[in-house]
């Protein structure tokens, strides 16, 4: 009788623990999703601003070749998950010379360009923040998924293991630092 009771108690406790762990894992997957969507929004905003900046500069300085920026921005927005990091890095690479030229130019480029650079600076710093947050969620999720109980009982179900998102967002942020200061 007593052994039966002990076994029952152990089983109930185990079931509670498993349910609780599954709940934790589920929450982490939700967190990863939320992190991803915030990061996605920040990246889309940067691409949109990059295109806008290219259009504006083309208007004031005709003849300048800005097709690379426009193409990279469009590609970044259309890229699928597997290609996203490379597309975003490509955009950074073509955007940097333009930004550098605008921020170090001796003649002022007008208020519109300055305002757009300020917005681009804040969008870029948002990407860094969102990436930090999204990767933090990936960290915790992977740590939980590695646990024996989770692996043996397949608590993660069919949810794919989340991946870190690594792009270079600091170099552009540094280029844009003078513009960020001007933004109120």
């Amino acid at each position, binding site marked *: 009788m007593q052994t039966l009771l002990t076994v029952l108690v152990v089983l109930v406790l185990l079931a509670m623990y498993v349910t609780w762990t599954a709940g934790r894992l589920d929450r982490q997957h939700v967190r990863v999703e939320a*992190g991803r969507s915030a990061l996605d929004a920040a990246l889309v905003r940067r691409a949109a601003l990059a295109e806008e900046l290219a259009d504006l500069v083309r208007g004031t300085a005709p003849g300048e070749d800005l097709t690379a920026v426009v193409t990279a921005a469009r590609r970044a927005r259309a890229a699928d998950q597997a290609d996203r990091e490379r597309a975003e890095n490509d955009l950074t690479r073509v955007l940097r010379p333009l930004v550098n030229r605008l921020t170090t130019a001796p003649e002022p480029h007008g208020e519109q360009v300055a305002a757009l650079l300020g917005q681009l600076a804040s969008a870029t710093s948002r990407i860094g*923040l*969102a990436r930090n947050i999204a990767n933090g969620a990936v960290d915790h999720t992977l740590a939980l998924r590695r646990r024996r109980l989770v692996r043996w009982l397949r608590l993660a179900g069919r949810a794919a293991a989340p991946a870190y998102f690594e792009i270079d967002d600091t170099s552009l942020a540094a280029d844009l630092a003078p513009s960020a200061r001007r933004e109120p």
Partner: protein
Amino acid sequence: MRIGIVCPYTWHVPGGVQAHIRDLAEALIREGHEVSVLASADDDEPLPSYVAPAGRAVPVRYNGSVARLTFGPISNSRVRRWLRDGAFDVLHVHEPAAPSLSLLACYAADGPIVATFHAANPRSRVMRVMSPTLQPALEKIRARIAVSSAARRTLVEHLGGDAVVIPNGVDVAAFRGASPLPGREPTGATLGFLGRFDEPRKGFTVLLDAFTVLAAQRDDVRLLVAGPGDVDDVLDDLSADVASRIEFLGMVSDADKVRFFHSIDVYVAPNVGQESFGVILLEAAAAGSPIVASDLDAFARVLEDGAAGELFAVGDPAALAAALHRVLDSPQRRAELRAGGDVVAGRYDWISVARRVLEVYETVTAGQQATVGEDYASEGLLARLISRG
């Protein structure tokens, strides 16, 4: 945005974390947000309208000092009620790695949670030992903020993961335009030091050695010292001439601290180590005092490598004396330092800091309609039986 902030320590006890939360909450309110701060405090204490009391705290040793903490079933039910009533868009807990209201809130809540880590302690045994039991609560935190890179390093080493560094702010307006302390107008060569001067890491002895050198060369230098410590210990080692030019004010109130900065011509920060973030430098800069500071990493960063303060080799009295000569001899350099200080103080004004914290809130709540709810799984079987019984 509806923001719920949890303060782990007793509200009315003066402390860095409490001051940080007060200033942040008030800046967020000025920006037009709804803020409620849950803090341990007695129900009958006078509190600002945005503070909700969570009951009395008990003293616990943590991180080398005695912290007054609130923990237990009664606090737990108050946390849960506050979460239910608040329906916050984001929950912001402070110092959640200590057993406190903040940790309780992490267990109790579900949804967008942000945490700020303040402690910079390279060898926190408490944090290391507690780490595995804290994990279920800490993994709910969507974004982590550290107030300094030292705090971030502590966090990364003990708990893993990363954090965004958003430093403390200063209430710039509060430091501007005050009058000097009565009878203590700046003389043109009055140096100032603020802090516990018998604490070795504050480097007061470095300043004393430099001041002794300086006093032999200049008739006009004075030193004004604000902060607690044993005055006789200091004066015993000094010549009568040097001693007569030093004045000790003892502990000063917040209002007198502001006036102190307006009674001096140069603020000196001779610290020799373990300074995670130079809040005092920002306060001096906000008050418009030219700064001479040791070149600790944290100081050099805040002072932008010398743009907002004259830096000297840490622990070197001769270098400090030379730096003081440079600054005292040149009104132009003092004006430069004041202008640089103004820019830095503006960057760390609470409004700018609060906007950066808001960016974090916006990032964790992006695209979500849900508010912070309760995590019923963590409520505990017993508590559930009692509360629903």
